[in-house]
């Protein structure tokens, strides 16, 4: 049994630092290599793995992650394969959550998905296009199978909206740093710290900031006000730029080490 996300955040807080959350799509570039990449992230200090479930219409993702999920789908990655990747992460002793657009989960069956994820040792689900209003069935299934429901808040969310969302959330709250899709940015939006502060008014849950974080310096900056730092496209970029699996694994490990230092540098 691996640690739930709450335990991981508590441990990071006890060390007086933010947790580091790293994203890679399952099956990218192939199912087998994706597990080795994820293990490299864990070994280099990533606290929670956000496992992407590849989807044909990733409308919240920029070109880098689009390319990665296209490759994963072309490699034949299915939802069962994603669950299998989660199980391998669990077997390696790490904590993971799944990031998936809603339709693949609905198609799989919400109860069946929650049960399968729990059985594989997965800790939670981030479904960026599922709002609490549309998520009643999911909430029931996830609760029944001890899966955290990680909802997003955005700079455009009103205070009333944030207050409502956090009542449905568990594990942690995902704060989108900027208005936009995933992808590295030269600066993390100025809206992020304000959004975290607004969200804290309404919840004691840990708050992690994602979208646009790609460097150790940005991780340090975000770690100053958030409980977690989420990095996705930067990891994917390292894999896309590598000319072999072993080069990709070492590049991902290097980035993970830099970021792990970043969240500890206060």
């Amino acid at each position, binding site marked *: 049994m691996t640690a739930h996300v709450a335990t991981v955040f508590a441990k990071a807080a006890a060390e007086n630092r933010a947790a580091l959350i790293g994203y890679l799509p399952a099956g990218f570039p192939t199912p087998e290599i994706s597990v080795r990449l994820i293990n490299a992230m864990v070994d280099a200090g990533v606290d929670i793995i956000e496992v992407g479930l590849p*989807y*044909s*219409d*990733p*409308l*919240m993702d*920029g070109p880098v992650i*689009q390319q990665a999920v296209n490759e994963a*789908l072309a490699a034949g990655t*299915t*939802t069962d394969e994603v669950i299998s990747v989660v199980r391998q992460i669990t077997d390696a002793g790490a904590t993971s959550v799944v990031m998936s657009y*809603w*339709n*693949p*989960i*609905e*198609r*799989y069956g919400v109860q069946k998905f929650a049960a399968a994820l729990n059985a594989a040792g997965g800790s939670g689900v981030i479904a*960026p*296009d*599922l*709002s609490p*209003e*549309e998520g009643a069935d999911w909430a029931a299934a996830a609760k029944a199978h001890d899966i955290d429901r990680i*909802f*997003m*808040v*955005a*700079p*455009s*969310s*009103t205070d009333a*909206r944030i207050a409502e*969302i956090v009542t449905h959330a568990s594990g942690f709250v995902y704060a*989108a740093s*900027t*208005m*936009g*899709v995933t992808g590295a940015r030269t600066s993390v939006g100025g809206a992020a710290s304000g959004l975290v502060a607004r969200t804290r008014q309404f919840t004691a849950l840990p708050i992690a900031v994602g979208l646009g974080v790609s460097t150790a310096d940005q991780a340090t900056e975000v770690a100053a006000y958030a409980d977690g730092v989420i990095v996705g496209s930067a990891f994917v970029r390292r894999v896309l730029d590598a000319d072999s699996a072993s080069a990709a694994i070492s590049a991902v490990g290097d980035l993970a080490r830099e970021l792990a230092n970043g969240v500890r540098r206060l």
Partner: protein
Amino acid sequence: MTAGHYGPYGGRFVPEALTAALDELDAAFRVAKDDAEFQAELRDLEHNYTGRPNPLTFAKRFSEHCGGARVYLKREDLNHTGSHKINNVLGQALLTKRMGKTRVIAETGAGQHGVATATAAALFGLDCTVYMGLEDTRRQALNVARMKLLGAEVIAVTAGSQTLKDAINEAMRDWVASVDSTHYVLGTVTGPAPFPEMVRYFHSVIGREAREQILKAEGRLPDAVVACVGGGSNAMGLFSGFIDDADVILRGYEAGGDGVETGRHASRFSGGSPGVLHGARTYVLQDEWGQTLPSHSISAGLDYPGVGPEHAWMHDTGRASYESITDAEAMEAFALLSRTEGIIPAIESAHGLAGAMRIGKELGPDAVIIVNLSGRGDKDVATAARWFDIDLGGTVASELSPEMREGR
């Protein structure tokens, strides 16, 4: 049933970043609906800019091929910009101004919605970006040129299948990043609430006029009203005028492509299943894992793997029924209307016309049928020329026989 839902369908499946904009749009729409000034502005535009009301034309010679049923054409093809799309766009452009936004974006498949949006943007002085799949920019090059002439930026989308589905993804990505200044003029009765309800509302003028016109022409309601269904906005607009008349058959015709049995089609009801796509739960072409499957149709405007959620609900409740029309059937109707009535229809609309031919034979010679002629076919001339293998050169006079040259 909560607002924005049609039974289990519809809803709002979008990133949280868009919730505030959809709430703002919903509020602006509800105020405008009850605002006399907004209504007066919209009616004035419909009348003096679009050219409404457009006629309901009795298609006498075409009817002879429809089992003798009396077939009427609702002439949306005569609207300014050449299709029904302008109805919705003018309404949304007025809302854009009311919300104080300065830029509009749109997706387009056949290009008709893109042209309509570019037109309204020019009329209202708004910046305009239109996303169009690369494949569609090739199929509909004429409409790309029209949009550019109207001052819009056209972005060819190279992701995925390079068609309407991918253009919507890209428009959504733009919108998430630009929502403070930008309104997304979604072009059909799908997407997150309030789009399905709002787009139907702006197209309901089609059904209102058609109902009044058929009562005048025939002294009774029609037996059936039919239309092609891509996303389903022209059908929803026409159906809305008859939905409460339980005896009037409502029938939508989806693109059957090469035939539903070939897997190359856009028939969501016979070849798809309930799922979530582009912000709404509805019938979707998808595989066993919930990955969207590519659609296929000779008609760019019907080439879409999803369908409006209210159609999904009417399908399940049985209030409306849906059938498939293959490319070949649509093109036969395309040619037939051209030669019997002197009207070249859009290939999208030709699917509705083929449907009228089929349902006319079912209902028999006493039946009265209205078909929505949702657009004109100018944009499709190149596609039709390829389909029918038409020689685009004229016959050279010197090659004619002496008898013909002398007019004998």
